[in-house]
């Protein structure tokens, strides 16, 4: 039954209907969680013992940085599934993720820069964490450019999938950069083996924002994938029926 569900989901027609019903829920969840996260983060959470109120940019910076890595893994994973099983929907999900991931990477870099100026005393340094995150942005941009450069969608999907899979090697480098080398960027706070070294009153809004960003990604990637599916399937019966019914 579970297998059956995935088989059905992978059919463009079923996906279109299913994702259409899912979208309003994702949007509602995203708005509610963002409002709650911002309220608890900006109003309820106490100031930091060292950084005062400036640390609050973390509630945007950290989820964006997490998303930049998460989306890359999803993109490469979907690309690999597309390569192996030649599932069209996986290719669509993979390329639809690229621009969302690029946006989150850009956001992480910009908010980090704004945070760095008052705290570290500099907008930018070429330490391992910041440089590897910048490379991630270039990887995303390269994948988008490569996809746009090839007219045949199937060939484009294969080429971008290979580039995305090669780039996966950067993901552990970004994550462990602060442990392998000495950097200006501090070490991990939440994702370390012992208890997170962040007070619960600050951890809750951080996690709320992280889930909110995840829902936002799901929402946007589904919207983009729906467009792409319709465009690719424009000559099939179900799309014609859909257009006529509206």
């Amino acid at each position: 039954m579970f297998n059956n569900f995935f088989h059905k989901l992978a059919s463009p027609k079923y996906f279109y209907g299913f994702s259409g019903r899912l979208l309003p829920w994702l949007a509602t969840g995203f708005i509610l969680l963002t409002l709650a996260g911002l309220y608890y983060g900006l109003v309820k959470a106490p100031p930091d013992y060292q950084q005062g109120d400036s640390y609050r940019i973390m509630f945007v910076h950290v989820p964006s940085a997490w998303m930049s890595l998460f989306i890359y893994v999803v993109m490469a994973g979907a690309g690999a599934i597309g390569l192996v099983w030649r599932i069209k929907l996986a290719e669509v999900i993979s390329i639809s993720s690229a621009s969302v991931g690029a946006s989150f990477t850009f956001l992480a870099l910009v908010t980090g820069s704004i945070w760095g100026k008052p705290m570290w005393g500099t907008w930018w340094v070429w330490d391992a964490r910041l440089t590897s995150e910048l490379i991630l942005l270039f990887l995303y941009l390269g994948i988008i450019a490569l996809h746009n450069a090839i007219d045949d969608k199937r060939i484009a999907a294969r080429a971008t999938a290979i580039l995305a899979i090669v780039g996966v090697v950067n993901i552990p480098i970004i994550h462990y950069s602060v442990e392998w080398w000495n950097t200006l960027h501090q070490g991990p706070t939440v994702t370390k083996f012992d208890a997170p070294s962040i007070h619960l009153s600050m951890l809750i809004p951080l996690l709320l924002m992280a889930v909110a960003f995840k829902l936002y990604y799901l929402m946007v990637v589904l919207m983009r994938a729906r467009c792409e599916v319709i465009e690719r399937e424009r000559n099939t019966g179900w799309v014609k029926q859909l257009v006529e019914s509206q």
Partner: protein
Amino acid sequence: MTPKRRNRIILIVLMIAGVGIATGFALKAFNENLMFFYQPSQVIAGEAPAGRLIRVGGLVTTGSVQRQPDGLTVQFALTDNIETIRIQYTGILPDLFREGQGIIARGRLGDDRIFIAEEVLAKHDENYMPPEVADALKAAHEKGVSETGAAGTTP
């Protein structure tokens, strides 16, 4: 699973492994260049190039910060709990600069073994907590230190 698909999976796994190993070797080869700063003990041991622009990172030794009469020049000691070097800096320090704080100074080591910094950046740690919690932790730590200190003196 068809043999064709299995071959594709094997190919992808080999590709990831190959790229991963190549990157691993490259990073290992450039390991030293990827370090953002030297530690004071490395500078003392002569591992850092002399006379060149380098970065030194460590903790500002408590009680070592001295302001010069001109009001802008600061001298302080930087330690990695093994060795200590003195640093002199003229300019505006970042807000987070304080004794016990991790900082990174960019500059050159002078002949008199004083490191002349052109730029001082503050590092902050990965801990986030309200001021009250930090105070409570500090008090508990001091209490713990004095208790173990007292225990140490009794035979």
